[in-house]
């Protein structure tokens, strides 16, 4: 698995912070399990790309952000969205195409956006968030707001030339942009080694962008790296690129069930049993005695109730009215 871990002791991160991050990861996990379930029961229209297994990246990253900082997200975006502060009920509603969803049902799973939490939107174009995130960083610098702007993307986006155009601009103009590459090793059904020549970290470095590899399954390591990147950005030192090694437990999308032809079962097994970010975190918490079993159980019960209620309310919510189809085309 070959991940370079920048692991710190949990106490460096702070107990409250670690528990908060644990909670956030668990929230995403529970959210995604329900999304999977809805889809499997044919209750959800379209597709969904689950974030299960990658939770530590969104959570560690967003833990270092303020609410007013910006993010852009991807087709696999529920985790980023929740970590940045979205509420699950309006998210489920959006996944179901309901009027109470974040986008009034017009966006769907791949387009959730929310100005209140600085979420510039998930994007169904691979690499599609790079320009937007860099532009938000440009605004922050132009207006002197000290915000930073985080661009999440899968390693597949390394194939899109526009990413390099944006990193060049960000570095030239010392923009507070943070490029977070979630390397789960697969571009859909193709291993990234078949699509990615050279060394990934050398790519941002070639544009002068500070680059760092991070164990994407260790939420503490992600948080620490995120914190460094955010400081760099806020202090005018320019962009950072974080390469986070990770793994998606499920298929590319919920319908991707038979995966043996592109991904070995034992690889899946190994990442799930040994490298699950939530289990790992649980391990540290208990090993270091940071919380007792009861606390974690209570957390899980609370979140479960929240998520179930969110699904319920989303299911019960009405679809948009037909006439709404023509609204919001122009501001």
């Amino acid at each position, binding site marked *: 698995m070959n991940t370079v871990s920048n692991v710190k002791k949990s106490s460096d991160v702070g107990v409250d912070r670690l528990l908060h991050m644990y909670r956030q990861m668990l929230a995403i996990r529970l959210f995604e399990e329900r999304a999977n379930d809805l889809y499997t029961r044919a209750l959800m229209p379209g597709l969904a790309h689950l974030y299960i297994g990658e939770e530590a990246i969104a959570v560690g990253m967003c833990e270092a952000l303020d609410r007013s900082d910006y993010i852009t997200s991807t087709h696999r975006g529920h985790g980023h969205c929740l970590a940045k502060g979205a509420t699950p009920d309006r998210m489920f509603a959006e996944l179901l*195409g309901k009027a109470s969803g974040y986008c009034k049902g017009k966006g769907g799973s*791949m387009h959730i956006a929310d100005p209140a939490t600085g979420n510039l939107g998930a994007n*169904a174009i691979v690499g599609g968030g790079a320009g937007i995130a860099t532009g938000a960083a440009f605004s922050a610098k132009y207006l002197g707001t000290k915000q930073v702007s985080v661009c999440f993307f899968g390693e597949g986006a390394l*194939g899109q030339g526009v990413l390099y155009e944006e990193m060049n601009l960000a570095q030239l103009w010392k923009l507070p942009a943070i490029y977070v590459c979630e390397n789960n090793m697969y571009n*859909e059904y193709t291993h990234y080694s078949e*699509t990615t020549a050279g060394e990934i970290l050398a790519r941002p470095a070639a544009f002068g962008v500070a680059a760092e590899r991070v164990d994407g399954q260790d939420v503490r390591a992600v948080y620490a790296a995120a914190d460094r990147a955010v400081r760099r950005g806020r202090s005018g030192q320019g962009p950072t690129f974080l390469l986070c090694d990770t793994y998606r437990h499920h298929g590319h999308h919920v319908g991707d069930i038979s995966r043996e032809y592109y991904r070995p079962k034992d690889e899946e097994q190994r990442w799930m049993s040994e490298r699950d970010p939530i289990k790992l975190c649980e391990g540290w918490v208990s090993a270091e005695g940071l919380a007792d079993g009861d606390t974690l159980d209570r957390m899980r019960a609370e979140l479960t109730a929240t998520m179930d209620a969110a699904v319920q309310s989303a299911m019960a919510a009405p679809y948009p009215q037909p006439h709404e189809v023509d609204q919001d085309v122009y501001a």
Partner: protein
Amino acid sequence: MLDTVTTTAVRELTFGEAIREALAEELRRDPRVCLLGEDVAEAGTAFKVLKGLVDEFGKNRIIDTPISEAGFTGLGVGAAMTGLRPVVDIMFGDFLTLIMDQLVNQAAKIHYMSGGAWKVPLVLRTTMGATRRSGAQHSQSLHAWPAHIPGLKVVVPSTPADAKGLLKSAIRDDNPVVFFEDKISYAKVKGPVPSHDYTIPLGVADVKREGTDITLVGTSSMVQVALGAATMLEQVGISAEVVDPRTLWPLDEKTLVESVKKTSRCIVIDEGYARYGVTGELASVIAEGAFYDLDGPVRRMGARHVPIPFAPPLEDATVPTEQQVVELARQMCHK
């Protein structure tokens, strides 16, 4: 209605199967044909349409690419100039946005700019069509854009048999051809397909159903909508002719105009945006050619002029339906 069909085995295939068969036959026939695209090999694309080709033709000819649409399309252009006949796969037609320079400033113009010296025998296969709940960036039908550009040919097949015959022509054509496949049709549209090696020339429209009262010009998936509407119209005593141009360029103006001269009424139905797109062109060509025979203006139906929404009830309101065609046709025929 196939131009070169003789008596031969005819099977029911889906639209997707017909495409795969066309590709397999051309790959077999001509070693210069190769396929490039994302997840085209073992995965057989996201739509599974190419499933199995890599087993027969190997990874040197069925080539998985990085997610670099501009990159591998541009590579395809150069390969086409230098002895190959690449078929480039752009998973969603929405991603045409990423390759317009390769397609329009390069592929379309090289033959002309070089005074005829270089040729670009490239096929660009991509998809169109909404109602898959895929959201605004995976549901567009952008075939009007390449149709606007001289130097490109544009194919919009509606049936499995047409898809096979037209795709084979496209691959054998010495020009860049953009081939649009309706995603919904892949599995949903079935039809008889001859098993022999036939082609359908680019630039020949097909009258999919004859009629006398009104002409329904449909493209791609809208041909099925037009046919469905025609059946319903029959029940109210309206005889609708359904004409499928099959290729937007070259365009068989004659067949379109002649049908409307006969019927005196016309609705053009296309799944692209109606504004500044395909419907305007077809309607204008027909109005110019059949003006004095027209009973009223040519009417147009296309995608609603909004980004395609996700919510099912909204998305469904963006695509022309049989019912809407029927209503408009009845109005036009005063029945």
